[in-house]
């Protein structure tokens, strides 16, 4: 039904474009045109498509929830919870479509009939309204075409609005992120105190699984302490930085200050390949090669090493991050004005002294910014940790033990079927919003540092 309607609107739009252009040629024989003939076509087409499609989309978005309220009105006197109502509505819908397999009560049957009826009414109303709008807007547009009004300006204003709405897309995505995370997280914080979440030291959500009824609030208090996860996240990010900062920074300096053109031309893109490799591939590498390797070395030295050590995950993550730091610091160092270097050389400093005492301090803010960006990347990294680091949230600072991170826990909780309304599922969204806030803060700080730095030398 919807498909037919949309096809009809689209076909009508094309027809009105050609009709408008033809009409313009007819007008041309008696009057001077106000715009190129195709603008007459665009004008009609825009008036045809835009109002009808807007109404169509709005209708399709709101129809289900309106129908749902009508159906569930019959159940308001039964004192049901939200979840039970949702279940009933799902049953009614399934019954109406004919895919329901449970036993059918009279009440359900009645509702299903009502549902079919409502759907029918809604459908015919939709078609009627859209046809009416099409007729109305087309006849309005046609009148202005006949009067030979200005055509190009309204079309361009319309296009500008289309562009504007598209640019709102990015804002919409942000709003969507914030609201979807907040919505579930708030419900989570109704069940678990925000204080227990931020300062609790035990993360063990599986404990709250209860088949029927509500989990024990005492259990909940002790199961959702996110401190081990925050600690694990930053610990692994720290290990990654220990690998990435020296290697990345030194290669960045070498590439920008020492390397000849040939080396730079080939080495830089090759190092950047490291950033293009999908993280799941790094995860596989960490779990299958680096993890056992670290364990073997540790055992040979008489240390007890977990097969899923934080060290393995962090080191591989560090390798992944090398190109971020090397490229960014390369850019930053190249941006340091040449006269600073020349001044230093003129005083008799060697190249490395210039780098260490003049260029590095001058580029420091930019380098700090790029390191912060890399940290935010490491904090948000998921697959390496899921595959190579442990899934149990240990509070530890021993790099040879296993530990878990925010991202890994989100995956562990949400893999497979989720039940919305369960505190365990909601806790993933609470973790998600903390991750979002942490990375956002890191980015805002990093970007403002870099921006300040740029202004200094421009």
């Amino acid at each position: 039904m919807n498909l037919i309607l949309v096809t009809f609107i689209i076909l009508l739009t094309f027809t009105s474009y050609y009709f408008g252009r033809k009409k313009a040629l007819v007008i041309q024989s008696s009057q001077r045109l106000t715009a190129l003939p195709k603008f007459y076509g665009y004008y009609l087409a825009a008036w045809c498509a835009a109002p009808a499609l807007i109404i169509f989309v709005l209708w399709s978005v709101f129809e289900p929830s309106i129908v749902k309220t009508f159906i569930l009105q019959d159940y308001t006197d039964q004192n049901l919870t939200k979840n039970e109502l949702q279940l009933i509505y799902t049953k009614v819908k399934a019954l109406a479509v004919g895919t329901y397999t449970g036993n059918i009560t009279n009440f359900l049957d009645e509702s299903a009939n009502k549902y079919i009826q409502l759907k029918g009414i809604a459908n015919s109303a939709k078609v009627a309204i859209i046809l009416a709008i099409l007729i109305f807007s087309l006849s309005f547009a046609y009148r202005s075409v006949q009067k030979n009004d200005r055509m190009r300006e309204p079309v361009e204003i319309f296009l500008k609005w289309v562009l504007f709405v598209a640019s709102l897309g990015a804002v919409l995505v942000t709003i969507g992120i914030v609201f979807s995370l907040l919505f579930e997280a708030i419900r989570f914080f109704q069940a678990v105190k925000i204080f227990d979440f931020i300062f609790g030291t035990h993360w063990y959500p599986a404990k709250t699984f209860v088949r029927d009824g509500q989990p024990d609030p005492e259990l909940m208090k002790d199961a959702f302490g996110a401190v081990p996860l925050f600690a694990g996240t930053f610990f692994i990010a720290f290990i990654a930085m220990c690998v990435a900062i020296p290697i990345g920074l030194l290669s960045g300096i070498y590439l920008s200050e020492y390397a000849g053109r040939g080396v730079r031309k080939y080495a830089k893109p090759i190092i950047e390949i490291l950033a293009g490799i999908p993280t799941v591939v790094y995860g596989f590498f960490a779990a299958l090669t680096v993890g056992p390797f670290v364990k073997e070395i540790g055992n040979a030295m008489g240390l007890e090493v977990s097969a899923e050590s934080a060290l393995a995950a962090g080191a591989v993550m560090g390798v992944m991050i090398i190109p971020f730091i090397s490229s960014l610091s390369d850019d930053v160092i190249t941006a340091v004005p040449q006269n600073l270097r020349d001044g230093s050389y003129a005083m008799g400093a060697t190249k490395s002294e210039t780098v260490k005492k003049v260029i590095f301090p001058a580029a420091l803010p930019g380098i700090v910014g790029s390191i912060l960006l890399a940290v935010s990347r490491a904090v948000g990294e998921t697959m390496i940790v899921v595959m190579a680091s442990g899934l149990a949230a240990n509070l530890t600072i021993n790099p040879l033990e296993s530990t878990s991170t925010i991202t890994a826990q989100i995956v562990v909780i949400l893999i497979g079927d989720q039940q919305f309304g369960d505190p365990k599922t909601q806790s993933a969204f609470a973790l998600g919003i903390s991750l979002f806030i942490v990375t956002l803060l890191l980015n805002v700080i990093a970007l403002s540092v870099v921006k300040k730095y740029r202004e200094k030398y421009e």
Partner: protein
Amino acid sequence: MNSFKKNLLKKRYNAERRFQWYGKIAIGLALSFLAVFMFQIFSKGYSAFQKTWIVTEVHYDKELLLIDAESPSKDDLENADYYDVAYKAMTSLDPGLPEEEDRQLIQMVSYKYEAEVKDLLLKNPDYLGKIVPIKLTASDDVDQVHKGNYPRDIPEENRRVNDYQLQIYDMLNERGDILLEFNISFFTSPDSREAELAGIASSFMGTVFSILVCLAFSFPVAVLAAIYLEEFAPKNKFTDFIEVNINNLAAVPSIVFGLLGLGVLLAVFNLPRSTPLVGGITLSLMTLPTIIIAARASLKAVPPSIREAALAMGASNMQTTMHHTVPLSMPGTLSGTIIGLAQALGETAPLILIGMVAFVNTIPGTPVDPAASLPVQIYIWSESAERGFVEKVSACIMVLLAFLILMNLAAQIVRHKFEKKWS
């Protein structure tokens, strides 16, 4: 010059050389990581492109097939009973084996061997009543033994292939009845629980559909948004806000987009779970900022003289933009889009959250069929304990990397071939 100064100079020059070496070592380390990494993947994975077959003889005995008709039709062949025929084909390898031990022989081929026996007859109906050689897919244990990935000298109870099976394997190998051929089924069959049958067709199609959906959603919106922000947006607080927003969105961890997909697309809009449609939309939200940033940079690079010339000829702002600026910026925009899509191609975490990690053993035909994607397939297989999957994972990684290299090459070509150089 006194010796103190000489020493100092020497020290300083040594420090200089040391510093240079640090830089060289750092670059060398980074490059050697890449080399080790590639070597590991290729050395483990190349064998997955080969498949081990066991050749035996099958007798298409009419009686055992329970075919009565004199000249059986296709339907008769379709409905015949192949169990006994297939069973005999395998047990004939060692006729002296007592019946209760026959599982040892059967386990040397994949569990689908009966279907393979059937397919051969359906393809060649004239084999009926004859004894013909047949290739059967070896089980993944035999496969791994043949490729030399299993050590044979460890105690029997630690091995997945026992002494008797090894003995049969050696006998067959000497006769030349173990074949190693190019593994077509790795590319044509869907995922399976059995390593020897598992292929990447389902996840490959899932990836293709997700990327197409991603492109369809993100490209138009991103290009239009970039045009607005670069060419029309007035300089005010609101457009500043949009800009900051886009920059921050580009740095949001991918898993958060997975949560968005789960919380909005699945829970609110009730789109079908585990499908490339939802996966593609989720990925498109992620690539949106990347494409917007690339498109804006590329619009910015079009020199103002082009705009001024068009305006001087009497074109309106919109005409200038649509007829001149945007077409000239397209190469940069397109190469940015391809790079954004390549990033999306390697994403795993958001797809896991929207359920594309489910076991799918059919090849999806449309974007609304359940599917996996290549990176998710890598994750699924690497979580599996069987040795046979390790080489499959490496092979799947190679396919994924090949895909990525192709896309990046395409981006380079688009950029260098079509981009105008202004100077």
